[in-house]
């Protein structure tokens, strides 16, 4: 059986599932419950200078009857005193010495960083996460994503921390940038031992049509928030792969963003993450989802005859290429299984109105037919089909050699 124990930047964790720094890690009470439920580690809710929070803090994007496709928050870092947090962190570490306990921090001045690092190390935490990601409330004060967005500042503050910290330092990156590799490389230059990504994305989830105010509202007004949950996973996976595939980037990565099931976690590992962190899914369903994360990944490793999560690392990321490197002579066309077809004809109307008019309806049957000569193999029909594996994309042998854009006759630079 696979062993889920994982090493991450020198931190040994019983499994690769950590709670992200967020409301589920507000208190010692919660973190202990989480460890009991099977979480391997927790990144404590970000410590920093005193702040206060507003009332009405979250809003969500619902898609049909899916209530929380995406979650948005306008909360800040911890609103409890540093003393209280440290006291509870100490208790947690004492009761759960094997679980990874990471202190997330966000400060302005060098002395503040140094003071907090010292006090955290004194109580025996396992590492630090520098919050350069929070997109609201604090960046206006030169913290959070204001740091993550400026590689020079990112490098400088990271080095302030790494100069004094004896425990591993993880830099948490903001996705609110055009090129994620720049702040990541800056963190590496600043001496970080790892990065984690992503923090939340700048967003407004929607507008209330009755009050005509954006969500969520605080006394009639709103502010942009940070977006997370299932909807952000594709963005996070792309950023993760960009770092994984960057030749100069060497640090381990803790993947974050929309992880809810063991399948999500495996995707992150395959795209290059060593551990993963979860926030929204726990806010939605509670700590109990750890049971399935652990069992699911473990079974997947067994089925693939692998011993540990590290064997998965980056397998899929390697298959990510520039568009120019793809084979233009490869061809698939859609195939409809008439036995599985439930005759909703959604594929027909999708191709007819939204793609390449390559599906036809024939008299005396409701099963649509693919016009193979004109099908371009775009996948749309198979995506809209509500029946699993009813429409499959079948490779057609062209018997032609691989042809990339550089060599293609249509390329005008040839």
């Amino acid at each position, binding site marked *: 059986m696979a062993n889920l124990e994982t090493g991450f930047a020198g931190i040994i964790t019983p499994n690769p599932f950590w709670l992200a720094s967020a409301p589920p890690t507000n208190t010692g009470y919660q973190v202990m419950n989480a460890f009991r439920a099977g979480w391997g580690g927790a990144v404590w809710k970000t410590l920093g200078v005193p702040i206060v929070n507003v009332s009405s803090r979250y809003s969500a994007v619902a898609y049909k*009857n899916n209530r929380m496709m995406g979650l948005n928050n306008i909360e800040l870092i911890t609103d409890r005193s540093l003393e209280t947090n440290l006291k509870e962190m100490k208790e947690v570490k004492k009761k759960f010495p094997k679980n990874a306990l990471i202190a997330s921090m966000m400060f302005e001045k060098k002395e503040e960083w140094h003071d907090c690092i010292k006090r955290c190390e004194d109580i025996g935490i396992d590492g630090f996460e520098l919050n350069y990601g929070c997109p609201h409330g604090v960046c206006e004060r030169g913290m959070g994503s204001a740091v993550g967005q400026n590689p020079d500042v990112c490098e400088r503050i990271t080095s302030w921390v790494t100069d004094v910290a004896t425990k591993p330092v993880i830099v948490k990156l903001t996705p609110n940038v055009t090129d994620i590799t720049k702040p990541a490389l800056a963190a590496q230059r600043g001496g970080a031992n790892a990065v984690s990504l992503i923090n939340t994305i700048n967003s407004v989830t929607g507008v209330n049509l009755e009050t005509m105010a954006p969500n969520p509202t605080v006394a009639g007004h709103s502010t942009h928030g940070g977006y997370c949950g299932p909807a952000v996973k594709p963005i996070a996976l792309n950023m993760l792969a960009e770092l994984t595939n960057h030749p100069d980037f060497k640090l381990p990565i803790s993947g974050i963003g929309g992880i809810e099931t063991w399948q999500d976690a495996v995707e992150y590992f395959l795209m290059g993450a060593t551990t993963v962190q979860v926030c929204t899914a726990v806010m939605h369903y509670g700590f109990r989802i750890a049971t399935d994360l652990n069992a699911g990944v473990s079974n997947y490793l067994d089925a693939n005859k692998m011993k540990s999560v590290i064997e998965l690392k980056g397998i899929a990321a390697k298959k990510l290429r520039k568009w120019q490197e793809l084979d233009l002579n490869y061809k698939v066309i859609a195939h409809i299984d008439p036995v599985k077809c*439930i*005759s*909703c*004809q*959604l594929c*027909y109307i999708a191709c007819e109105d939204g793609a390449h008019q390559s599906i036809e309806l024939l008299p005396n049957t409701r099963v649509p037919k693919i016009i193979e000569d004109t099908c371009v193999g775009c996948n749309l029909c198979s995506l809209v089909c509500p029946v699993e594996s009813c429409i499959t994309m079948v490779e057609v042998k062209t018997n032609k050699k691989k042809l990339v854009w550089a060599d293609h006759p249509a390329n005008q630079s040839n």
Partner: protein
Amino acid sequence: MKRNSKLEDLNKKFEKIKPQMTPSEAVVESSRCLFCHDAPCIIACPTSIDIPMFIRQIMTKNTLGSAKTIFSQNILGKSCGQVCPTSVLCEGACVYHDLNEKPIDIGRLQAYATGHAIDKNIHFFEKGKSTGKKVAIIGAGPAGLACAHELTMLGHKVVVYEANKKAGGLNMYGVAPYKFSNKDAIQELKYVSAIGFEIKTNSPIENPSKLEKEFDAIFLGAGLGGSKKINIPGEDLSGVYGATEFIYNLRDKDLKVNVGKNVVVIGGGNTAIDAAVESSLLGASVTVIYRRSEKEQTAYSFEVEHAKKHDVKFVYLTSPIEILGKKKVDGLKCIKNKLKSSSRKSEINTVKDSQFVIPCDMVIIARGQEKMIDFFKSISKLKLDDGKVVVNKDFQTTNPKYFAGGDCINGGKEVVNAVANGRDAARGIDKYLMKKK
């Protein structure tokens, strides 16, 4: 005090079998809809409501838009949502069946959206510009009302003549109250007629030709007649009822009727089942006897299941031969049958020496309704086929001034068929009156 609590009990017993959806139920259910192209449910609906569209509008909380989508095809969309045998119509065609998933609850969604507009008293259609033409409608059942509404929209002046003291036809006096109550029927009637056509109740038309002078066209939506007799001794004893008369009485008295302790219902159709369930809800112990076997029964299987849930006993391959009793019924003498073949129309043979008596104090005969042949014969040149009025595709009869639709042309189908006929007949009448091609 006591009476009231009894009445409450009764109303509780006759609670809706398809209760009104809550807004959140409706949103969750509507978001399951796949929005099929050329959807099979639309094809299966006799009034061709754009079902995927109205469901989508419920999902987007455009409930009034949804109601309009329904009403523009079927102005009785509310009663249809509640009384249609959806599992053999729209829901029966839902592609989810092929996925082994529960079909979309179309009937209840439809009742939800239409109920919303009716409760808020929001109307979507107006009287058309007057054409100066006058149309008489005989019968204020679903066919007559749908026809009247459409004709009014088209600008014709309409007078509906209704024999009963309340309009609505079998929606008022026939359909089981646990599907559609008196309150529902009155509310819908008020909503539909608000467009501005006249209904004259207590106005049976004996000879339609007397209307010919005053009106430019006449629509026959008279439905069917009373319950058929079975012609066995004892049929005139007290305690013997025709099913439609029994149900008429139940609806007319708003459930406050007496029922026997032991009731036998004779027949195998949906009306027999309704009468049986209603008797059971009123407190009787009920037996249904049917001359053929369960397989040949014309009632929908979901109706039979519903009856079994209400402890209705079914005795198959049994025919009544005599109703026993002095003045009042005290038993039903029956004989066992066997079928010659397995076809629905198979010859029935009685089994020798198999007579037996079911003790009972009430017998309800549900062998179908009479056709009103004498009534239709009073109209000149009107062709009948087996008692049903013959019409062309515009619902015009063989007498060009007369049009017809509903149970009187199809021999008894569903409310939704009557609505479709009434609506289309109105368009046929318009074509005839306005000399359109």
